[in-house]
Protein backbone atom coordinates (compact mmCIF):
# COMPACT_ATOMS: atom_id res chain seq x y z
CA UNK A 1 0.00 0.00 0.00
CA UNK A 2 2.70 2.53 0.96
CA UNK A 3 5.11 1.70 -1.88
CA UNK A 4 3.39 3.59 -4.73
CA UNK A 5 2.84 6.59 -2.49
CA UNK A 6 6.52 6.78 -1.53
CA UNK A 7 7.49 6.69 -5.21
CA UNK A 8 5.73 10.01 -5.76
CA UNK A 9 8.54 11.72 -3.90
CA UNK A 10 7.97 15.24 -2.52
CA UNK A 11 4.47 15.39 -4.04
CA UNK A 12 3.32 12.33 -2.21
CA UNK A 13 1.18 14.04 0.39
CA UNK A 14 -1.04 15.98 -2.01
CA UNK A 15 -3.63 13.52 -3.19
CA UNK A 16 -4.15 12.30 0.30
CA UNK A 17 -4.45 15.82 1.69
CA UNK A 18 -7.33 16.45 -0.72
CA UNK A 19 -9.07 13.37 0.64
CA UNK A 20 -8.60 14.61 4.19
CA UNK A 21 -10.35 17.87 3.38
CA UNK A 22 -13.43 16.08 2.14
CA UNK A 23 -15.40 16.34 5.39
CA UNK A 24 -15.13 20.14 5.58
CA UNK A 25 -15.94 20.51 1.90
CA UNK A 26 -19.03 18.44 2.57
CA UNK A 27 -19.93 20.64 5.50
CA UNK A 28 -19.86 23.71 3.24
CA UNK A 29 -22.78 22.32 1.27
CA UNK A 30 -24.85 22.80 4.40
CA UNK A 31 -25.98 19.20 4.42
CA UNK A 32 -24.29 18.29 7.63
CA UNK A 33 -21.41 18.82 9.97
CA UNK A 34 -18.71 16.24 10.27
CA UNK A 35 -18.30 14.86 13.71
CA UNK A 36 -15.44 16.64 15.47
CA UNK A 37 -13.76 13.42 16.46
CA UNK A 38 -13.74 12.24 12.84
CA UNK A 39 -11.86 15.34 11.66
CA UNK A 40 -9.52 15.14 14.62
CA UNK A 41 -8.82 11.50 13.89
CA UNK A 42 -8.05 12.34 10.27
CA UNK A 43 -5.80 15.25 11.16
CA UNK A 44 -3.94 13.15 13.67
CA UNK A 45 -3.60 10.19 11.35
CA UNK A 46 -2.24 12.13 8.40
CA UNK A 47 1.32 12.77 9.67
CA UNK A 48 1.58 9.21 10.90
CA UNK A 49 0.64 7.94 7.46
CA UNK A 50 3.02 10.27 5.66
CA UNK A 51 5.78 9.01 7.86
CA UNK A 52 5.02 5.53 6.64
CA UNK A 53 3.64 4.35 9.97
CA UNK A 54 0.13 3.96 11.25
CA UNK A 55 -2.68 1.97 9.74
CA UNK A 56 -3.00 1.49 5.97
CA UNK A 57 -4.80 4.29 4.18
CA UNK A 58 -7.85 2.18 3.51
CA UNK A 59 -8.64 1.96 7.17
CA UNK A 60 -9.35 5.69 7.28
CA UNK A 61 -12.05 5.59 4.65
CA UNK A 62 -14.98 4.94 6.97
CA UNK A 63 -14.28 8.27 8.67
CA UNK A 64 -14.35 10.45 5.58
CA UNK A 65 -17.98 11.04 4.52
CA UNK A 66 -20.22 11.82 7.47
CA UNK A 67 -23.55 11.12 5.81
CA UNK A 68 -24.11 7.74 7.47
CA UNK A 69 -23.74 9.29 10.93
CA UNK A 70 -26.77 11.54 10.40
CA UNK A 71 -28.88 8.74 9.01
CA UNK A 72 -28.48 6.20 11.74
CA UNK A 73 -31.27 7.50 13.92
CA UNK A 74 -32.19 4.18 15.48
CA UNK A 75 -33.70 3.85 18.91
CA UNK A 76 -31.52 2.26 21.52
CA UNK A 77 -32.48 -1.36 21.94
CA UNK A 78 -33.04 -2.49 25.45
CA UNK A 79 -33.92 -5.91 26.76
CA UNK A 80 -37.37 -4.66 27.76
CA UNK A 81 -39.90 -4.58 24.93
CA UNK A 82 -40.53 -0.93 24.17
CA UNK A 83 -44.01 0.38 24.74
CA UNK A 84 -45.39 1.70 21.49
CA UNK A 85 -48.48 3.87 21.55
CA UNK A 86 -50.40 3.47 18.33
CA UNK A 87 -51.41 6.68 16.64
CA UNK A 88 -52.66 7.49 13.17
CA UNK A 89 -51.80 10.94 12.03
CA UNK A 90 -51.12 12.28 8.57
CA UNK A 91 -48.07 14.52 8.58
CA UNK A 92 -49.47 16.88 6.00
CA UNK A 93 -52.49 17.30 8.24
CA UNK A 94 -52.24 21.07 8.55
CA UNK A 95 -51.83 21.55 4.80
CA UNK A 96 -54.50 18.97 4.02
CA UNK A 97 -57.01 20.64 6.33
CA UNK A 98 -56.35 24.02 4.76
CA UNK A 99 -56.57 22.54 1.27
CA UNK A 100 -59.87 20.87 2.12
CA UNK A 101 -61.26 24.15 3.45
CA UNK A 102 -60.10 25.91 0.29
CA UNK A 103 -61.72 23.26 -1.89
CA UNK A 104 -64.99 23.71 -0.02
CA UNK A 105 -64.77 27.51 -0.42
CA UNK A 106 -64.06 27.15 -4.14
CA UNK A 107 -67.00 24.79 -4.57
CA UNK A 108 -69.33 27.06 -2.59
CA UNK A 109 -68.30 30.07 -4.68
CA UNK A 110 -68.64 28.10 -7.90
CA UNK A 111 -65.06 28.73 -8.98
CA UNK A 112 -63.16 25.99 -10.81
CA UNK A 113 -59.50 25.87 -9.84
CA UNK A 114 -56.72 24.46 -11.98
CA UNK A 115 -53.10 24.31 -10.86
CA UNK A 116 -50.12 24.03 -13.18
CA UNK A 117 -46.93 22.20 -12.23
CA UNK A 118 -43.78 21.58 -14.25
CA UNK A 119 -40.06 22.08 -14.19
CA UNK A 120 -38.83 25.68 -14.59
CA UNK A 121 -38.96 26.80 -18.21
CA UNK A 122 -41.53 24.27 -19.43
CA UNK A 123 -43.87 27.06 -20.46
CA UNK A 124 -46.39 27.35 -17.61
CA UNK A 125 -46.50 31.12 -17.87
CA UNK A 126 -46.58 31.15 -21.67
CA UNK A 127 -49.46 28.68 -21.68
CA UNK A 128 -51.36 30.64 -19.03
CA UNK A 129 -50.75 33.86 -20.94
CA UNK A 130 -52.21 32.29 -24.07
CA UNK A 131 -55.21 30.84 -22.20
CA UNK A 132 -55.92 34.01 -20.19
CA UNK A 133 -55.71 36.15 -23.32
CA UNK A 134 -58.35 33.97 -24.96
CA UNK A 135 -60.53 33.70 -21.86
CA UNK A 136 -60.22 37.05 -20.13
CA UNK A 137 -62.50 39.23 -22.28
CA UNK A 138 -65.54 37.00 -21.73
CA UNK A 139 -64.88 34.70 -18.78
CA UNK A 140 -64.39 35.71 -15.16
CA UNK A 141 -60.91 34.27 -14.80
CA UNK A 142 -57.96 35.02 -12.50
CA UNK A 143 -54.54 33.63 -11.71
CA UNK A 144 -52.15 33.20 -8.80
CA UNK A 145 -48.56 32.67 -9.75
CA UNK A 146 -45.74 31.39 -7.53
CA UNK A 147 -42.05 32.13 -7.84
CA UNK A 148 -39.19 32.41 -5.39
CA UNK A 149 -38.65 36.06 -6.33
CA UNK A 150 -39.84 38.86 -8.66
CA UNK A 151 -43.30 39.68 -9.95
CA UNK A 152 -42.27 39.20 -13.59
CA UNK A 153 -44.81 36.47 -14.23
CA UNK A 154 -47.67 38.39 -12.63
CA UNK A 155 -46.91 41.45 -14.72
CA UNK A 156 -46.70 39.34 -17.83
CA UNK A 157 -50.02 37.59 -17.14
CA UNK A 158 -51.76 40.83 -16.14
CA UNK A 159 -51.44 42.04 -19.72
CA UNK A 160 -54.31 39.68 -20.52
CA UNK A 161 -56.58 41.91 -18.43
CA UNK A 162 -57.32 39.17 -15.87
CA UNK A 163 -56.71 39.80 -12.16
CA UNK A 164 -53.34 38.24 -11.28
CA UNK A 165 -51.48 38.04 -8.01
CA UNK A 166 -47.87 37.01 -7.49
CA UNK A 167 -46.87 34.78 -4.57
CA UNK A 168 -43.19 34.99 -3.65
CA UNK A 169 -42.00 32.00 -1.69
CA UNK A 170 -38.51 33.49 -1.00
CA UNK A 171 -36.68 30.20 -0.62
CA UNK A 172 -39.46 27.66 -0.52
CA UNK A 173 -39.59 25.27 -3.46
CA UNK A 174 -43.36 24.87 -3.71
CA UNK A 175 -46.69 26.53 -2.94
CA UNK A 176 -48.63 25.47 0.15
CA UNK A 177 -52.33 25.79 0.91
CA UNK A 178 -51.77 28.56 3.46
CA UNK A 179 -50.09 30.70 0.79
CA UNK A 180 -53.18 30.34 -1.38
CA UNK A 181 -55.33 31.32 1.62
CA UNK A 182 -53.28 34.45 2.17
CA UNK A 183 -53.22 35.39 -1.50
CA UNK A 184 -57.02 35.12 -1.71
CA UNK A 185 -57.73 37.10 1.47
CA UNK A 186 -59.26 40.14 -0.22
CA UNK A 187 -60.53 38.43 -3.35
CA UNK A 188 -64.21 37.84 -3.91
CA UNK A 189 -64.29 34.25 -5.10
CA UNK A 190 -67.95 34.52 -6.08
CA UNK A 191 -66.88 36.99 -8.77
CA UNK A 192 -64.77 34.30 -10.46
CA UNK A 193 -65.57 31.30 -12.63
CA UNK A 194 -62.06 30.02 -13.13
CA UNK A 195 -58.85 30.39 -11.15
CA UNK A 196 -55.43 29.23 -12.28
CA UNK A 197 -52.63 28.58 -9.83
CA UNK A 198 -49.17 28.43 -11.32
CA UNK A 199 -46.87 26.59 -8.94
CA UNK A 200 -43.15 27.20 -8.49
CA UNK A 201 -41.19 25.45 -11.24
CA UNK A 202 -40.35 22.14 -9.58
CA UNK A 203 -41.16 18.53 -10.42
CA UNK A 204 -40.58 17.17 -6.93
CA UNK A 205 -42.03 18.96 -3.92
CA UNK A 206 -45.34 20.31 -5.32
CA UNK A 207 -46.53 16.72 -5.64
CA UNK A 208 -46.86 16.51 -1.85
CA UNK A 209 -48.92 19.66 -1.36
CA UNK A 210 -52.62 19.82 -2.05
CA UNK A 211 -53.66 23.39 -2.86
CA UNK A 212 -57.39 22.75 -2.92
CA UNK A 213 -57.44 22.72 -6.71
CA UNK A 214 -60.02 20.69 -8.65
CA UNK A 215 -57.57 19.75 -11.40
CA UNK A 216 -53.82 19.59 -11.60
CA UNK A 217 -52.07 19.88 -14.92
CA UNK A 218 -48.51 18.67 -15.27
CA UNK A 219 -46.60 20.23 -18.14
CA UNK A 220 -43.71 18.73 -20.03
CA UNK A 221 -42.07 20.58 -22.91
CA UNK A 222 -40.69 18.81 -25.96
CA UNK A 223 -37.23 20.22 -25.23
CA UNK A 224 -37.01 18.32 -21.93
CA UNK A 225 -36.72 14.87 -23.43
CA UNK A 226 -39.23 12.04 -23.64
CA UNK A 227 -38.23 10.41 -20.36
CA UNK A 228 -39.27 13.23 -17.98
CA UNK A 229 -42.37 11.28 -16.84
CA UNK A 230 -40.24 8.22 -16.09
CA UNK A 231 -37.73 10.26 -14.12
CA UNK A 232 -40.30 12.23 -12.11
CA UNK A 233 -43.21 9.79 -11.67
CA UNK A 234 -44.51 11.26 -8.40
CA UNK A 235 -45.65 14.55 -9.89
CA UNK A 236 -47.37 12.70 -12.74
CA UNK A 237 -49.15 10.56 -10.21
CA UNK A 238 -50.53 13.64 -8.48
CA UNK A 239 -51.87 15.18 -11.71
CA UNK A 240 -55.14 14.88 -13.65
CA UNK A 241 -53.99 15.98 -17.09
CA UNK A 242 -50.62 15.97 -18.85
CA UNK A 243 -49.92 18.88 -21.19
CA UNK A 244 -47.12 18.62 -23.72
CA UNK A 245 -45.91 22.14 -24.45
CA UNK A 246 -43.81 23.78 -27.19
CA UNK A 247 -45.04 21.25 -29.74
CA UNK A 248 -44.04 23.58 -32.58
CA UNK A 249 -40.43 22.83 -31.55
CA UNK A 250 -40.81 19.04 -31.46
CA UNK A 251 -39.04 18.42 -34.72
CA UNK A 252 -36.20 20.84 -34.00
CA UNK A 253 -35.75 19.32 -30.52
CA UNK A 254 -35.78 15.80 -31.95
CA UNK A 255 -38.61 14.88 -29.60
CA UNK A 256 -40.45 11.63 -30.28
CA UNK A 257 -43.99 12.62 -29.28
CA UNK A 258 -45.25 9.04 -29.46
CA UNK A 259 -42.59 7.93 -27.02
CA UNK A 260 -43.45 10.83 -24.69
CA UNK A 261 -47.12 9.78 -24.79
CA UNK A 262 -46.12 6.18 -24.08
CA UNK A 263 -43.98 7.25 -21.12
CA UNK A 264 -46.81 9.30 -19.63
CA UNK A 265 -49.11 6.30 -20.10
CA UNK A 266 -46.53 4.03 -18.42
CA UNK A 267 -46.34 6.25 -15.33
CA UNK A 268 -50.01 7.18 -15.07
CA UNK A 269 -52.16 4.85 -17.14
CA UNK A 270 -55.30 6.44 -18.49
CA UNK A 271 -54.37 10.05 -17.79
CA UNK A 272 -55.50 12.32 -20.65
CA UNK A 273 -52.74 14.06 -22.59
CA UNK A 274 -53.09 17.24 -24.63
CA UNK A 275 -50.27 18.46 -26.86
CA UNK A 276 -50.17 22.19 -27.48
CA UNK A 277 -48.09 25.19 -28.43
CA UNK A 278 -48.63 28.55 -26.77
CA UNK A 279 -46.89 30.34 -29.62
CA UNK A 280 -48.83 28.82 -32.53
CA UNK A 281 -52.04 28.26 -30.59
CA UNK A 282 -52.17 24.57 -31.49
CA UNK A 283 -54.04 22.46 -28.95
CA UNK A 284 -55.37 25.47 -27.00
CA UNK A 285 -58.95 24.84 -28.11
CA UNK A 286 -58.66 21.33 -26.74
CA UNK A 287 -57.44 22.71 -23.39
CA UNK A 288 -60.30 25.24 -23.30
CA UNK A 289 -62.76 22.43 -24.02
CA UNK A 290 -61.23 20.48 -21.16
CA UNK A 291 -61.75 23.47 -18.86
CA UNK A 292 -65.38 23.82 -19.94
CA UNK A 293 -65.91 20.13 -19.19
CA UNK A 294 -64.78 20.49 -15.57
Amino acid sequence: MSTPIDERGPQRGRPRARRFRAPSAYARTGMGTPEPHASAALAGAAPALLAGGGPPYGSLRPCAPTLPTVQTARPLRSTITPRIIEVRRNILKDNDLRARALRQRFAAAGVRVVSLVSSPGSGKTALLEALLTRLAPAARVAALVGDLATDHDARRLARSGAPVRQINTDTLCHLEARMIETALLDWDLAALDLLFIENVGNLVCPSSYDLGEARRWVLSSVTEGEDKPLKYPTIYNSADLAVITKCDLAEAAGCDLELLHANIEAVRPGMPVIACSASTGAGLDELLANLRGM
Partner: protein
Amino acid sequence: MHELSLAMSLIDGVEEECAARPGLKVRAVHLRLGALSGVNADALTFSYQLACQGTPLEGTALVTEATPGRELEIIGLEAAEL
Protein backbone atom coordinates in the same frame (compact mmCIF):
# COMPACT_ATOMS: atom_id res chain seq x y z
CA MET B 1 -36.21 22.61 2.29
CA HIS B 2 -39.19 20.46 1.44
CA GLU B 3 -38.28 17.73 3.91
CA LEU B 4 -37.48 20.32 6.57
CA SER B 5 -40.98 21.82 6.43
CA LEU B 6 -42.40 18.30 6.55
CA ALA B 7 -40.23 17.52 9.57
CA MET B 8 -41.61 20.61 11.30
CA SER B 9 -45.19 19.49 10.57
CA LEU B 10 -44.23 16.06 11.85
CA ILE B 11 -42.91 17.52 15.11
CA ASP B 12 -46.05 19.66 15.54
CA GLY B 13 -48.10 16.50 15.08
CA VAL B 14 -46.07 14.52 17.60
CA GLU B 15 -46.24 17.36 20.12
CA GLU B 16 -50.03 17.48 19.80
CA GLU B 17 -50.25 13.71 20.29
CA CYS B 18 -48.00 14.05 23.36
CA ALA B 19 -50.11 16.86 24.77
CA ALA B 20 -53.08 14.48 24.66
CA ARG B 21 -51.09 11.92 26.67
CA PRO B 22 -49.68 13.66 29.75
CA GLY B 23 -46.56 12.04 31.19
CA LEU B 24 -45.56 10.33 27.97
CA LYS B 25 -41.86 10.59 27.24
CA VAL B 26 -41.16 9.72 23.64
CA ARG B 27 -38.03 7.85 22.63
CA ALA B 28 -38.84 7.24 18.98
CA VAL B 29 -41.45 8.23 16.45
CA HIS B 30 -42.65 5.53 14.05
CA LEU B 31 -43.62 6.69 10.62
CA ARG B 32 -45.14 5.08 7.56
CA LEU B 33 -43.62 6.50 4.39
CA GLY B 34 -45.11 5.66 1.00
CA ALA B 35 -43.09 5.31 -2.17
CA LEU B 36 -45.46 7.79 -3.85
CA SER B 37 -45.38 10.32 -1.02
CA GLY B 38 -42.57 12.22 -2.69
CA VAL B 39 -40.51 12.14 0.48
CA ASN B 40 -37.05 10.69 0.94
CA ALA B 41 -36.61 8.81 4.21
CA ASP B 42 -32.97 9.78 4.71
CA ALA B 43 -33.58 13.47 4.01
CA LEU B 44 -36.59 13.45 6.32
CA THR B 45 -34.59 11.75 9.10
CA PHE B 46 -31.83 14.32 8.71
CA SER B 47 -34.31 17.23 8.74
CA TYR B 48 -36.07 15.72 11.73
CA GLN B 49 -32.85 15.74 13.75
CA LEU B 50 -32.32 19.40 12.87
CA ALA B 51 -35.90 20.47 13.52
CA CYS B 52 -36.02 18.62 16.87
CA GLN B 53 -33.24 20.68 18.34
CA GLY B 54 -34.47 22.81 21.21
CA THR B 55 -37.81 21.01 21.40
CA PRO B 56 -38.88 18.33 23.92
CA LEU B 57 -38.32 15.82 21.11
CA GLU B 58 -34.61 16.52 20.86
CA GLY B 59 -32.71 13.22 20.92
CA THR B 60 -35.65 11.11 19.80
CA ALA B 61 -35.29 8.80 16.83
CA LEU B 62 -37.34 8.53 13.69
CA VAL B 63 -38.15 5.01 12.52
CA THR B 64 -39.56 4.83 9.02
CA GLU B 65 -41.48 1.95 7.49
CA ALA B 66 -41.49 1.92 3.68
CA THR B 67 -44.88 1.28 2.08
CA PRO B 68 -45.92 1.27 -1.59
CA GLY B 69 -48.65 3.94 -1.51
CA ARG B 70 -48.92 7.66 -0.74
CA GLU B 71 -48.76 7.22 3.04
CA LEU B 72 -47.05 9.85 5.10
CA GLU B 73 -48.31 9.28 8.58
CA ILE B 74 -47.26 8.81 12.16
CA ILE B 75 -48.24 5.32 13.23
CA GLY B 76 -46.71 5.04 16.67
CA LEU B 77 -44.90 6.76 19.50
CA GLU B 78 -42.31 4.63 21.24
CA ALA B 79 -42.32 5.49 24.93
CA ALA B 80 -39.09 5.86 26.86
CA GLU B 81 -38.61 3.44 29.76
CA LEU B 82 -39.45 4.92 33.11
